[in-house]
């Protein structure tokens, strides 16, 4: 008896979206960037967000770790409502990792220190504990040999992989990627996408803003298309790339494919 109840509960929890954005609206001054944007992501899902430049993709995912405040609607992450409550924001930032287009590594810290800083200061790990975790992660993204170097000495692809390791060191439940390969030379795009692919395979919940169609087709469970601050299409990659429903999606695809 108890067994079946537990399974049922687990199933409910598993089917609960880990991220819910409901009718989110945001203004920069008078300019409305997000217009009732909606999105639900389940644990373990990989969602690719596409859309023309200026459509609000970055702004949208940046609301999910409170880098951008929003004015209307509601966002819930792993059951915690993202409000102005500082404690909630702190908890959500621990649960949500982010990788930026410009890497944003800390240039005055070594690669290892970049990765261990937050575990030591935020999760209160001891230095040896944090170093151990950092080494495992750096190994996983293939940069262990560079641990003692400063970020400035690394190539763009290597820096971005360090940035991924740095975010993973907080053991986040969700990872946000904002055009992680857009400022990389073509030959380095692959090494970063490979890391993201294996991260997806390991079951990480991922939200990825990218123009990499190959990655979206192969890795994404869903593709979300944004235009003018709205989510206007939310479907499987197969359907999105072969038979988009909306005129604006069609126009966009005709430009990038």
């Amino acid at each position: 008896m108890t067994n079946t109840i537990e399974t049922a509960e687990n199933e409910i929890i598993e089917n609960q979206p880990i991220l819910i954005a409901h009718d989110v609206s945001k203004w920069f001054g008078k300019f409305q960037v997000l217009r009732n944007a909606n999105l639900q992501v389940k644990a373990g899902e990989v969602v690719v967000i596409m859309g023309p430049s200026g459509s609000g993709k970055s702004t949208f995912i940046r609301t999910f770790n409170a880098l951008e405040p929003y004015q209307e609607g509601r966002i819930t992450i792993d059951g915690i409502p993202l409000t102005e409550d500082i404690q909630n924001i702190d908890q959500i930032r621990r649960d949500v990792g982010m990788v930026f287009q410009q890497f944003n590594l800390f240039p005055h810290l070594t690669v290892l220190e970049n990765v261990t800083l937050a575990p030591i200061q935020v999760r209160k790990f001891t230095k040896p504990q944090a170093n151990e975790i950092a080494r495992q992660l750096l190994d996983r993204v293939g940069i262990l040999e560079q641990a003692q170097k400063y970020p400035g000495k690394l190539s763009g692809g290597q820096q971005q992989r360090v940035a991924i390791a740095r975010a993973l060191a907080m053991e986040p439940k969700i990872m946000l990627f904002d055009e992680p390969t857009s400022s990389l030379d073509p030959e380095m795009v692959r090494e970063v996408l490979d890391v993201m692919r294996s991260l997806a395979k390991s079951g990480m919940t991922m939200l990825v803003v990218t123009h990499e169609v190959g990655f979206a087709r192969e890795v994404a469970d869903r593709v979300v298309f944004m235009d003018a601050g709205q989510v206007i299409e939310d479907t499987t990659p197969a359907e999105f790339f072969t038979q988009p429903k909306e005129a604006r999606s069609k126009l966009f695809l005709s430009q990038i494919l």
Partner: protein
Amino acid sequence: MNTKITIKPVRWVQKNLFNTPYNTVLTILCVWVLWNILSSLFSWLSQSEWAVISENLRLFLVGRFPESQLWRMGAIALIPILIASTLVVRRSQAWNFVLIPLGLASITWLANGGFGLPLIRSSLWGGLFLTLFAAAISTALAFPLGLLLALGRRSELPVIRGISTIYIELVRGLPLIGILFMAQVMLPLVVPFRLDRLLRAILGLTFFNAAYLAENIRSGLQSLPLGQSEAARSLGLNSIQTLRFIILPQALRLVIPAIVGQFISLFKDTSLLALFALFELTGIARSILSQPQFIGRNGEVYLFIGLIYWMFCFGLSQFSKRLEVRSS
């Protein structure tokens, strides 16, 4: 063709100094002026008496600090060296917050006395020691104040931003000498206990310097990309941790040359303290020159202290250049 260009001295002079009548007149004029300057310099040097320096060397260096207590100077000089080397060996930030106040406290204790050491009134302090002491202590005090003002000016709270901005702009709009007079005259009116004349002067220098340091630090803060604090916040660091581990280490490193430059100008500005009966380098020079046996030795004395000022400032600016090269 690889022709070596050799210029014969005579031809060079003809071509460059006497090629037109106008140039010829100019050349003769210059030579005449130079000759006059050099000859009067030589005649001054031949009559100069440097006994005023050698006999008063101790006054120039440490003022009237009692001879039996001079070891305390050595100890004071050791403290910054000890702190600097500890900070280099243990690259941990936490030590800054312990060692620097501790160092300041022990320097003040050694200089002033008390707790077992004989008291030495600040009127006995003087010379290069006082110059360095005033410059170093007021920089050390101005630094935290300047940092707070710089952060305050960028604060989201209008009151704090307003106060910081008004302070900075007010002080930057006043001449140092005015602030020093205000510190001498007004501080005793607002502070309930008696403040030493030297302490008032040091506070005046501190208030002045803090405003400029604040602007230097603010420019460092502003030049950091926004992505740095965004990355820190997205990792879950709170705003104080972000400031302490990400923003300040980078911003302060950027403004080290400006801060050294600030220290150089402060070092020279301490000469104004002579106006308040304090016997730092310039003050002690004036007091030596007022003694009957040294009357008229202004040239020797001012040349000597000028050389000291120059050596320190030049050394510091070379040091800061080296820092700049290393950090880039």
